[in-house]
């Protein structure tokens, strides 16, 4: 019975539990609800992925209304993979939450925080699950609005301006997406993605569809923070509470990359987007500049959280680079990196959350002697950093390997060299944290003060995942390969 409604339950349960959080008026109870909600999405996502891999895409009509009138959910390999990613990160992060939230967010806001968290989770899951272009915009707004609220809960007063800036930029992005969808609706008379895909080729040469394409490109680029539209991201990540940063960094931009894939591969169709609109030429320069420039900026940062935020901008460049290579390996690399980057940044930001929990600061100057003060936390940070650099036996290596192969497949030597060179930039900025932690003496009055186990366990769970997916690529590379070939061969 429940089995038949998995796609909608994936989204609806956290959506319904969100107001329940507020009703409890008790941080502890609200946390339990959020934990249940996240765990539920994880179970659903696991079952959905298993189903889709076994028996192909799953079309689900909400309330039994067939697509042109009702809202359709469509689960295939691509989005079930993204759903699993979002649910996994949400569950790990919420398990980490109680102490970190207690330390960084005022007590009266705890219930609101958990409520916003569930809303954000519901929004992100909804974006991934839906088969309806307008519905996607609605879920995008749900997730965005709740994340503005969560970012604003940061203790630093600058969190408010950061959140406000994100709100303005995010709204512009969402509006552009809405305008794009509206233009498409004007030309085709449908909002269902499958119908859109079927009708766009007939009207593809009109300027209206081209304008829609332009609006969608800019709107989605804003959401994924592709350089030069990344300017909202560093502040939002740096001043948000640690746990919010970890959650958003690992999920929000990844879901936005999924939106990019969905619109340009499924709705417009790969050949229209790339052959007729030259999306690859549009994305390539921005991707390359993002990889190099954002890595360089990261090197000069003095706040580790901000440093990792810029590193995220660079990593997003890798994902769009994979798309702009426009071959199967490149697309696989994008999807694999989407997953792996969530794991590594999740692990890094959670480890950083442990540091902030003890030191109330993420400044590099505070890291002196941290290798001895918080050995397990720093070990997790180093492991996450190695994965970010792309050292073999970690997940990061798999992404880089695929990406380099994809670049070589196109015969683009300079791009392959640039990917390797940018990995060396990552070595530098990770080293800037590792060096004081292990080679500078502790401050005189400092004592060994490891983070509590409730923070360390989720962090190390993600670290372990980084190692596991570096050794066993059957889940990541194989499913991503399936998803990529689905996208490439998607019916137009």
């Amino acid at each position, binding site marked *: 019975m429940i089995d038949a409604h998995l796609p909608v339950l994936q989204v609806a349960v956290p959506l319904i539990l969100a107001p329940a959080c507020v009703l409890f008026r008790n941080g502890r109870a609200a946390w339990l609800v959020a934990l249940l909600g996240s765990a539920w999405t994880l179970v659903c996502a696991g079952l959905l992925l298993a189903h889709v891999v076994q028996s192909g895409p799953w079309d689900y009509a909400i309330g039994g209304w067939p697509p042109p009138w009702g809202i359709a959910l469509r689960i295939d390999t691509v989005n079930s993979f993204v759903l699993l990613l979002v649910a996994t990160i949400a569950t790990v992060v919420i398990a980490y939450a109680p102490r970190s939230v207690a330390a960084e967010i005022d007590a009266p806001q705890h219930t609101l925080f958990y409520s916003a968290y569930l809303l954000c989770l519901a929004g992100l899951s909804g974006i991934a699950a839906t088969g309806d272009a307008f519905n996607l915009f609605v879920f995008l707004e749900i997730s965005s609005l709740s994340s503005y609220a969560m970012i604003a809960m940061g203790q630093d007063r600058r969190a408010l301006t950061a959140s406000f800036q994100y709100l303005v930029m995010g709204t512009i992005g969402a509006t552009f997406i809405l305008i794009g969808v509206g233009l498409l609706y004007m030309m085709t008379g449908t909002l269902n993605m499958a119908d859109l895909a079927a009708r766009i080729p007939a009207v593809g040469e009109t300027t209206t569809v081209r304008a829609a394409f*332009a609006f969608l490109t800019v709107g989605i680029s804003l959401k994924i923070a592709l350089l030069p*539209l990344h*300017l909202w991201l*560093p502040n939002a990540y740096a001043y948000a509470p640690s746990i919010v940063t970890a959650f958003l960094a690992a999920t929000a931009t990844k879901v936005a990359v999924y939106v990019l894939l969905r619109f340009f591969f499924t709705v417009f169709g790969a050949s229209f987007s790339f052959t*007729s609109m030259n999306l690859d030429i549009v994305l390539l320069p921005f991707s390359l500049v993002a990889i190099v420039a954002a890595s360089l900026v990261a090197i*000069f940062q003095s706040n580790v959280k901000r440093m990792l935020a810029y590193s995220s901008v660079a990593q997003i460049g890798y994902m769009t680079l994979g798309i702009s290579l426009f071959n199967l390996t490149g697309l696989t690399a994008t999807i694999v990196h989407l997953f792996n980057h969530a794991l590594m940044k999740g692990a890094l930001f959670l480890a950083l959350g442990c540091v902030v929990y003890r030191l109330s600061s993420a400044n590099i100057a505070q890291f002196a002697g941290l290798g001895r003060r918080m050995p397990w936390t720093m070990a997790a940070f180093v492991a996450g950093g190695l994965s970010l650099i792309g050292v073999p036996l970690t997940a990061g290596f798999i992404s880089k*390997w*695929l990406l380099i192969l994809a670049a*070589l497949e196109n015969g683009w030597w300079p791009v392959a060299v640039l990917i390797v060179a940018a990995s060396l930039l990552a070595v530098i900025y990770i080293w800037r944290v590792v060096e004081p932690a292990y080679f500078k003496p502790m401050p005189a009055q400092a004592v060994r003060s490891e983070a509590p186990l409730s923070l360390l366990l989720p962090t190390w769970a993600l670290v372990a995942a980084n190692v596991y997916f570096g050794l066993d690529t059957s889940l990541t590379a194989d499913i991503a390969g399936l998803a990529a070939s689905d996208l490439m061969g998607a019916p137009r």
Partner: protein
Amino acid sequence: MFATLNPALILIVGALLVPLLRGRARSLYMLALPLAGLVQLVLLPSGEYGHWQVFEYTLTTLRIDGLSFVFGLIFFVAAFLGVLYALHVEDTLQHVAALVYAGAALGATFAGDLITLFIFWELTAVSSVFLIWARRTERAYRSGVRYLIIQVGSGVILLAGIILHAHETGSIAFDNIGLSGLASTLIFIAFGIKCAFPLLHNWLQDAYPEATVTGTVVLSAFTTKLAVYALARGFPGTELLLYIGATMTAFPIFFAVIENDMRRVLSYSLNNQLGFMVAGIGVGTELAINGTVAHAFCHILYKALLFMSMGAVLYRVGTIKASQLGGLYKSMPLTAGFCIVGSMSISAFPLFSGFISKSLILGAVAAEQYWGVWLVLLFASAGVLDHSGIKIPFFTFFAHDSGKRCAEAPTNMLWAMGLTAFACIAIGVYPEPLYAILPYAVDYIPYTTTHVITQLQLLLFSAMAFAILYRRGVYPPEIPALNLDFDWVYRRLGRRLMAVSRTAIGGTDRAIRQALHRQGLRLLTGLFRHHGPHGILARTWPTGSMVLWVAVLLGAYLIFYYAGAR
């Protein structure tokens, strides 16, 4: 499962348990690890094991054949001797690093494919740097960072080469690669960095003397010999190697002669010895490869012995500067004796291990009629006697008496040195067991009248060269002063050579360096201006200008997409 367990993993995984143990139990456990690995290696029949599927590639994590077996064997022996020599050390970090490092070198030796090779290649770099950092001085830290950058850099170049190679050939098997095209050149350069090719060699003399007393002994055994193994596997018979090897044997002699730090002298001499092996690989005949392998085998032992004896001196006296040492044979007679065994082995005296291996390489070079190279190698053999055969033991244990008195080396060090010295002599006297395990059949008899007499002539004539220098240098009023004067002549010769080259190329070199330095600084300030915290790319922008960007991009995209329509 256990029958085909990778012997390297015994060391790597076993090392991780070392921190849990203390005292005698730890000592026994650490000694048992390399022995257990050795037994596992000997029990494994030749073949390929440990297959692992990654993407479309099958990794072969364990390959035992003639070549990898010999190197595996000597690496385990070296690991055992290294552990024994370091038993008195309390620092757990050093023990773990040394064992993981040895295990990584073994893992790379047993790698049947390039990806496995690359993984262990990088692991040797990352684990070994802790042996340098464990000295815990600022100098050692900096030296370690330089070492790490170069070693990891060689790994990155290797990876780039591997990816290209896989892309070109579709195969990742680690077999004869041969020097042709970009992919193999990159792999060749990566191997060359680790093997300390001329101009790529500086990391060796920079880092090894800075490592801890026991760390240098371990370092000297693995990294460069792993590179020799990799070259022998991937590039046998590449003629270029012949000339690289010949250069490597010759040029470090001059530096070794003028160097004051004894462990740095040994580092130069290590470089020189590697030259013989590289030249052997360059010849590439069965005899030459046998010679290279045998020389690597013997070299690991006598070079470790020399580093052990110098380490013992550093440990007891606190310095290893030739100018501050001398007369130590009175305090450390056993160490002195072992050092002399090492010196005679490296100088290839008959009945010592160097003789039976080096003559294989020289024989192979002669057999292929590379007379120029042969002469260089001969000259280098004489040079070895100068810096390693005489300089090392003479200035440390004899020469003028520095007045320093200290205890004999610790018991475990003496045992390690004693065992190694025994092995050096045993191989020299009775080389057949070593010849029997070489990759190809050996029909070579080292102890013929011609060989012995040629070698003795060579050694005696270079000793006589000393005598002449010594006579014509300064008239000897008294023995201690004599030695110093002799040292002075010795150094002046070297200095003069240096001075000639310095005036010739020094000016241009300095100009180039300064220009590069200026450019580098300019680049950095430029980078900082744009990417630093207040740079144009990193500062917080007002919301309005962000929106402006959005508008600009939208306009640009619209134009681009409309233009595409026409």
